[in-house]
Every structure is written in C-alpha cells, then in structure tokens.
C-alpha cells in the first residue's frame, strides 16, 4: 500500500508537469483527489487496515495529499499569473496616438502681466485700486503740474471727449496715463498711502509696431512721513529683479516728469544682449521699464498734504512692454487685435 501511495505521488507530480491550463488541472485534481480520486480511494481503505499500519500509512497518505495540494495551489497561481500577463499583453495601446483635445481657456497676456506686476507690489503692502478712464482735464494735467501751454503738455497726446461746459471749455478726456488716480486717492484718504493703480490709458497717436492708441499702465504711489528716494530705489529694485530675474542689473537715471522731483527713469540691463548693446536696446545696453520720482511738493499741496510733513514716491510703467520684452513680441498691435493665434500662445 505504501508503494501504491508512492507511485500515485510520482505519477501525479509527473502528470502535473504536462498540464497547461485550468481545465486540465481540474481534471487532474479530480483524478487524484476527487471523491473517486486515486488518493481518496487509498484513504478510504485505511479503515480496513490494522491500527499499527493505519497510523503509518495514514500519516504518509495525508503527507502526500498535502504535497499534492501545495503543488496544486502553486500551479494555480502560476497559471493565473501567466493568464493575466498574456491578457495584459494583448491589451496594449498605442501611446503615440494624439491626446484627446481639451478646450483651453486662457487669460489675455496683458491680464497675466498686470496681475504679475500687481502681485509683486501687493506683497509689499500696496493695495490694488482703480480710477476712471474718462477723466477731467484737471486730474489728468493741472493737478499733476502739467499746465496748458507748457511744452510738457505735449508729452501726452490727448483724445478729448466732445463735451463743452458752461464756459465753453472742453474739460473731459480719455486719461493719457494712470497718474490722475494718484490725485483721486490722495483726495480721498490721508497718509499713509500705499497703492497700486492699474488700468487702460489712451493716446491720440497713429498706431505702429511700438505705438497704440489704447494700452495699459500700472501706477504706484507711497506717501507717508519719512519716505525717501532710497525707499523708491529699494522698492523698484526689488520689483525689477522679481519680475525680470535676480541677476538683472537695475539703473536709476535722472529724468523729468512734471509731477515728481527728483525724477528718475528705471532701466534694466538688456535682456537680449546683457548690456553689450543690440537692436532691442538701441545699442545702449539698457532697457527702460518705468518712470518714477519723489512726489512733487506742489502735487502734495494740491491734495492738502503738507510737504513739510509728508513725502512719497510715485512710479508708472507700461504693461504690454513687459510681455513684449519677455516674449520677444515686436508689434504692440497684436495685443488688442484679438487674433486667437496670438492670444492662445500665452
């Protein structure tokens, strides 16, 4: 009987080696371990044996049964694995097929640049405020020391609104810069003032690659006791390097704007040539990014701030110019002609 068991074991294991699928495996299981299986039959005959033999043979039979069951489990998991593997292999996809298109939505490049500029200043405590685009001449000019008849008036070519007051004057215009918002803010609030004032401005100007009749500016103003030119430099230095990169050099040179004194123009070293001189920077090595200065005492007086007590600085910059520099855009007219082939690049 012991021999019989050994034969069964050898045969069963040998037979298992030739099996390749689950159906055959099941047949194999039934053949050896099923109700009428060979091993089962041996086990059934155990009762007929003397107790001595029963114990020895029983132990052997159970041992063989366990071995066969282990073989069976191992075989099953092997088969399962190869089945899954071959299934996965058949399920391959061509990953080089194009992705399904999504409908992209994007912000206008000006909105993006404007937000970027403003967020740098809001992080320095400047609050985002806005003022009207259609303005009184007073706010756009006189309040800012720009008097009719002075040549400085010509620095801004103005679009006038067809409106006459009782005196027969035409006092309404499309603001030529965001600077009038400075006056409106100071008229409404007492120092300390720290604001950033973005918005559309307009010029009576024939359009070409570098001139537009409508564009965006961002104006800034900080007024309090003890604000100095050094603070102006610090703030704008920080801004320029955050916007254009830590490695940029920043230049402050004397310039003239009627509503500041001293006046300053801020430039960065040319992004294209690094300061050697090229077409982009007209061979100067520098690119102007904004105008600034200490708020003129007469401007402060006009809004009832005592210039003996308060001082401050103001600055203004063109927004499109920033995108133009960054992306190498050479024609400002692209911004508001709304060609999606341009807009969806940003």
């Amino acid at each position, binding site marked *: 009987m012991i021999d019989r068991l050994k034969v069964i074991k050898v045969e069963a294991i040998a037979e298992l080696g030739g099996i390749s699928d689950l159906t055959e495996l099941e047949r194999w299981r039934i053949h050896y371990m099923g109700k009428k299986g060979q091993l089962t039959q041996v086990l059934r005959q155990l009762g007929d044996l003397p107790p001595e033999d029963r114990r020895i043979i029983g132990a052997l039979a159970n041992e063989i049964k366990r071995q066969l069951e282990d073989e069976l489990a191992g075989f099953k998991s092997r088969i399962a694995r190869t089945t899954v593997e071959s299934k996965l292999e058949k399920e391959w996809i061509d990953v080089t097929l194009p992705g399904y298109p999504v409908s992209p939505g994007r912000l206008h490049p000006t909105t993006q640049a404007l937000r970027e500029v403003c967020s740098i200043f809001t992080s320095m405590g400047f609050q985002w405020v806005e003022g009207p685009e259609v303005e009184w001449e007073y706010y756009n000019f006189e309040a800012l020391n720009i008097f009719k008849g002075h040549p400085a008036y010509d620095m801004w070519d103005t*679009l*006038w609104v067809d409106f006459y007051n009782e005196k027969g004057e*035409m006092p309404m215009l499309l603001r030529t810069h965001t600077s009038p918002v400075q006056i409106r803010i100071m008229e409404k609030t007492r120092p300390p003032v720290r604001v950033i004032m973005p918005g559309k401005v307009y010029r*009576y100007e024939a359009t070409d690659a570098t001139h537009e009749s409508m564009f965006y500016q961002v104006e800034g103003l900080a007024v309090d006791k003890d604000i100095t030119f050094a603070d102006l430099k610090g703030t704008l230095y920080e801004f320029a390097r955050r916007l254009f990169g830590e490695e940029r050099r920043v230049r402050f040179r004397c310039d003239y704007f009627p509503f500041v004194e001293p006046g300053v123009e801020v430039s960065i070293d040319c992004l294209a040539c690094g300061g050697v001189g090229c077409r982009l920077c007209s061979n100067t090595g520098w690119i102007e990014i904004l105008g600034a200065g200490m708020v003129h005492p007469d401007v402060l007086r006009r809004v009832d701030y005592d210039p003996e007590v308060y001082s401050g600085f103001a600055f203004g910059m063109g927004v499109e110019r920033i995108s133009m520099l960054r992306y190498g855009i050479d024609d400002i007219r692209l911004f*508001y002609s709304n060609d999606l082939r341009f807009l969806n690049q940003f």
Partner: protein
Amino acid sequence: MKASLKWLKDYVNITLPVRQTAEKLTMAGLESEAIEIRGGEWENIIIGQVVALEPHPNADRLQLATVNLKSEQTEQITVVCGAPNLRAGDKVAFARVGAHLIDGHSGQKVELKRVKIRGVASEGMVCSEKELGISDNYEGALILPSDVPVGIPLSDYLGDAVFDLEVTPNRPDCLSIIGIAREIAVLTGQRLELPSPQYIEEGSDIRERITVDITAPELCRRYCASLVEGVTIAPSPLWMQERLLACGMRPINNIVDITNYVMLEYGQPLHAFDCEAVSGRKIIVRRAGEGETITTIDGMRRALTPEMLVIANEKCPVAIAGVMGGADSEVGGITSTVLLESASFLPLNIRRTSASLHLGSEASFRFERGISPELTLPALQRATQLMVELAGGRAAKGIIDVYPDRVERSPITFSASQIEHILGMKVDLEEAKQVLTALGFQCKRVTPSELRVIPPYWRTDVNMVADVVEEISRIMGYDRIPVTMLSSPLPHQQPAPALDIRERLRDLMVGCGFQEIISYSMVSRERAGGIEPIHLANPMNREQEYLRTTLLPNLVASLALNQRHSISATKEENSIRIFEVGKVYLPRDKDLPYEEERLAAVLSGPRAKPSWQHQGITTTKKGYLDFFDAKGVIEEVMRQLTLEAEFKQIPLSSSSGRGDLGEFFHPGRTALVELEGERIGVVGEIHPQLADRFDLLPQTVTLFELEIEKLISYTIQDKRYRSIPRFPEIVRDIAVVVDSDIPAGRIENAIRESPLVVKVTLFDLYSGEPIAKNKKSLAFRVAYQSAERTLTNAEVDEAEQIILKQLSDEVGATLRS
C-alpha cells in the same frame, strides 16, 4: 538737440571717451539717444598739398596735379584733375584708390578705382565738397586752410562725433552747446571756458538811429538790438558750416548762419533784419492788428490776430515775434546793414502763436520752453562780434536794451536734514555747495547746517528745495543713494469686492474653457450701442469715434475675425469660445460717464474639437455649441459665486422694443438673466441679421453679457457648509406629457416643491410618435431624501403622487404610460 563734440571742446576739456561722456550725460538727465560719427565714411581720404600743376597733354580742361601726401614729402602722387580753382600750394582733401566718394552726377556713393583719363593714369583724386558729402558744391576742389597739417586723415580735421541728446522740456538751457558743455564740465570736474565777445564799435550810436518801443510789455520781457554796417553777404566759413550741419541746420549765408550759430551756442534765438526794411528806423513790439497779414521767409502769407506778438516798423509787421521773420526784411545778397535782434518773449504766447499758425521753428521751440531774459545780451554781443569778424561788418556804438521789468531771483534756503529727508542719505553741505557752485548757483553757508543759494539765470526750472536736491543728487549720481525697503506702517487695506469678483469671473471663465480677449473701448457708431454714446472730439478714425456701451459687438467682430483665420483649415475645427471683462461707458448729464464693468462672451462652433476617436461627432447638429452651453456656463459661474440665476424667456412681442436686445439677439432664443427678480444680463442666440452683418459662418452663435457690479449685492458673504446626508436617497424617474408650449422650468420647479425632493434632472425630452401632436414628453430623474431617516418606498410613492397631482392641476400633465 544735436551737439558736436568738436564744438563742445571749445568750452570744456573733454577727458572721457565719447561713449562714456554720453553715458554721464544720460545718467544726469540728458539722454543720449545716438552718437553720430561724422567723417567715418572718409576712409582713405587724407590731407594733401598740391606741389605742382601741369596741363594735361590730351585735354584742355584737365590738369595734372602733383600732390604731396606726407609731411616729410616722401610720397607724391600725380593725378588728373578738372578743378579750375586749384593753385600750387593749396591744401586739399585727397582720395586714394579705394575711397568711397559721392559721384557728382548720380549722387551715388562709388568706390574710387585706378583709371586712365585721356591716356594718363590717375591713382587718386582731389575732392570737391560734393564728393565728400559736405555740400552740393562740385564746381571746384575743396581748398582747406593753409595751416592744416599734411598727411593726416581728413576725418581728423573735419570729422566729428555728434551727440543726439533728448532734452526734457524743463531744461531749455541745454538746448545749447554751452549748456551741454556746462553739464559735461560739472560731471567730469572740468572748467567751463566761455567766449567773452569783444569787438570794436564804430560810428554813431545805435540809440540815435533806431528806437525800440514795446507796447505789449506783457508779452515781451526784454528787447536788445545791435547794428552792424557794411557787411558782405557770402557763404560762412567752412568750420561754421560744418558745425551747423553737424547740429542739423542748413547753412544759408554768413549773417543767417551767425544768428543760427549763436542760437545753438547760447540757446538764445536771434533775428537779423535788413535794416533798410525797418522804415522810419523804428521798431515797435506790439500785438498784431485785426486782419493784419505778413509774408514769412518761407514765402507763406499768414493771417495774424491780436493774440499774436509782432515786430513791426511804423507801417507793418516785419516779423512774427519769436516764431519767424518776414520775407520783406530778410537778409539777402544786397543787405549791407543788419539790425540784430535778441529778445525775450512770453513762452505761452509764442506757443499759442506757433500752434495756431502751425508754424514751428528752432526759435519758437526754445522760446516756448522759457529762456531767461538775462541771456539776450551776451548772445547779442557774441553774434555782433562774429558779424564783425566773419562778415566784414562794422558794429555801431552801443546796444539797445529795453528791459521794462527785471525780476531778481529769490534765494532758496535749505538744511542738510531737508536733503536727507528727501534722499534718505546724508549729504555733506560742503559737497552740495561745490556741486551747485559748479552749476552756476551762488551759494552761501548761512548757518553751519544751512545753505542759501540763488540759481543762475539760465536755470529757469529751479525754484524750490526739491529742485535743488535733484540738482545735487543727479550730479553726485543716483547710484550713491542707498537702497532701503519701505519701513513706514502699512496703511489700512480697504476691501474691494467689485475688483475681487471681477478677477474671480476672469478665472471662472477661463476654467469654463473660454479665451480672454481685450478690445478697444473706442468703437464706431454702429458698434457703440446705446442711444447717445460718448463721442470723441478728435478721434483717430471713424472706427474709434465713440465709447462703447456694450461689449457684444467687439466680441462678435472678434469671432468673425477668428472664424476667417481658421476657415482655411476645416470649418469644423473652428470652435471658438471667447470672453471679455471690461468697462462700458454710460453717459451722464454734465458729468463723467458711468464706467460699468461687464462680462460678455460669445461661443460658436463644434462643442468638442475633432479627434481620432470621436469621428463624426462634430458633423451632427447636436455637436455644436448653442444656447444651452452658454446657459450652462452662466449657471456654473453663478454657482461658484454662491448665486442662483433665473432665466426668463422674453415675450416675443416686447423684445423688438428693447433697443440693444432686439438688435443683437434672436427674439425667440433669448433669456433675461435675473437674480432675485433684478435683471443682471442677457443670454441668447445672435440675431441672424447681425450675423449677416459680420459675415459669420452659418452656425449657431450664442452671446451673453452680464453686469458685474449687480452680482456683488447678491453674493452670500457667510456661506455655510451643509452636512453630508446620513440617509440614502431614493431615485425615481417620472415621465410626463404636456402641451408643447409649457416651459420645462415650470415642471421642474413644481417637482422641486415637494419637501422630500433633493435633486431633479431632466434626462429626456421627446415629441413625435407615439406622443400626440402638440404635446411633448419630459422625463426627470428625481432624488428623494430625508435628513432624519431612511425613507420608505411608501413615503416616496406618496410624494410622487402629490407631485403628479400638482403637475396635472398646474400644467395639465399626464403620466406617460
């Protein structure tokens, strides 16, 4: 202002290279826009001396000139030459083979080649002014002064570097060579050497021969004049012509050139009259009479008004003061006595006159910027001197100087702490004093910590402490000012809900797949909308004449533009969703317009872009963006803002009455968007006529426009979280049949009224067999839920029955079997 380096060197020792000098000027406020090198094209042209002249063996009009080209006389070349004015010993500009010269006939620049002229070889050329590009004269060779060294390049002698400087309107003093030289001197620590005009006066006193009467002293602050007799009108010397050309002025004759030269040198415009034209020997500075006219030197007859100041003789005007002289008194070939004017006119008046006559000149440009009356005299003396020296004139004794109201400049006193207060840096008063003194300020240390200064007369722009501080800092260099961060307290920040919501809307629209556009506020009348939009007095063109009162036309125009761009691919790819957030300008009586922020969008084309998987999806009508896409976007955007918009059908009859609405929208496919009964916008399909006007593709176009400010008051400020339901929901479908004209919204709302209903979704809309004619079937998926317990089927059955009863009563709905 163009400034010749050579000329500047007359007054200041320029120690730095040209580019560094330009940089110094730029940093201090005079931006150098370009540096022009004159004579740079004169390569291979050197100064030679004619040592012998012989006739050409084969041509009567030509000569053979032997030219010495080295000072040591080691190199001589014989060339063929046609210049009739050449004499042995003359110093000339000699071009070697390879030089580039302007051809006398064609005007083109050509390279000089080795040639044979009538059988004689010629390796080089004696140049005329035209060939060198100096003037149009090519009758004879350019003869240089005898003291010029032989052998040096011509560019060393006649060449120059010219700064093109942008002079800001506050610095009229820098519209002069001396002014710029002064800046260079101060910036480089050099001394400024000024000309001190001296000349011999002869004959009777000018004051006995000419009288000057200022009858409009409010427009003329000072009038100076001198008289130069016996002048010979001729071209001015070469060096003067060169300098005028370098500074952008055309040489005319010696007298006119001298007035221009001194204007460039000092910044004071001068005018030379032919004294014969000053009849009665009387100069009257007066306002022009009504209807008076003058013919100016440019030959134009000009009508004058009493607003304008003229220089007149007893009969008529001889010049428009400060703007342009009259043709009758112009200095010309027969002039022998010159009356030289150097005056100071009111800037504003010159500006108005020049503007109303559309007549600008170098003179008016300077007067407009405000020139000190103090400058008139030195400039007059300088010009008189030059006329004596260069035009063979004799200066009459004395000078006329009418100066009715001389104003002393008031001193400015400031302390070291005031400078520090502005600059954020301590400045040594002694250093400040040095800088200011160099700039021409009179400085006095009134106390150990205070300086009192009087600005020089030419600095009309310096009037207060801030101005003086700018002078100190710009000369010391802005680089020296330290860099600090703002340390003052942060101001209180005001909430700005309108701004927040506007920016939020931009992001939400982008999230919904829309591309942002920004379009012009100025539009044509057709695109402006509204009844009486803001009109511009001086529009650039008809397309930018009005301010928009709606964003929609620009959006439609943009859609049309982009449809045209993508049409070349396939029409199906042309899926466009664009939006704009911007202002419209609503007129108000006698006030600035109301600037209202709006959000508008347009969408058209296939809902999805074609892809390799969804073949054909875009070819069915179902695949195109329509009204319900727009509505879905609005609903989603509103939800994000905690708002719930209602959409009201416009009764067909009234829609045509609503100005803009009727013009833009399809009356049957348009809804008013409302929040709690207030209209906040409109959404609808484009009116077919408008689509035609813009030549749009024949596919559905949907527009909407919302008023942003109105949203603010309806947003929920204290939004609360809703707990996640603990009990399951039971979902049932209800399909009902109603008359086709019953709005779906009414049915949906009726279902929602049941207290157990938490969600209603329309999932099918059907009409046609087997549904009766004029009827439609709507199928809703309805979710029932309770916050307190798990609902039983019986409870839901009951709720459903109540809903059906309600629907039956309200809209005659029957359950679809």
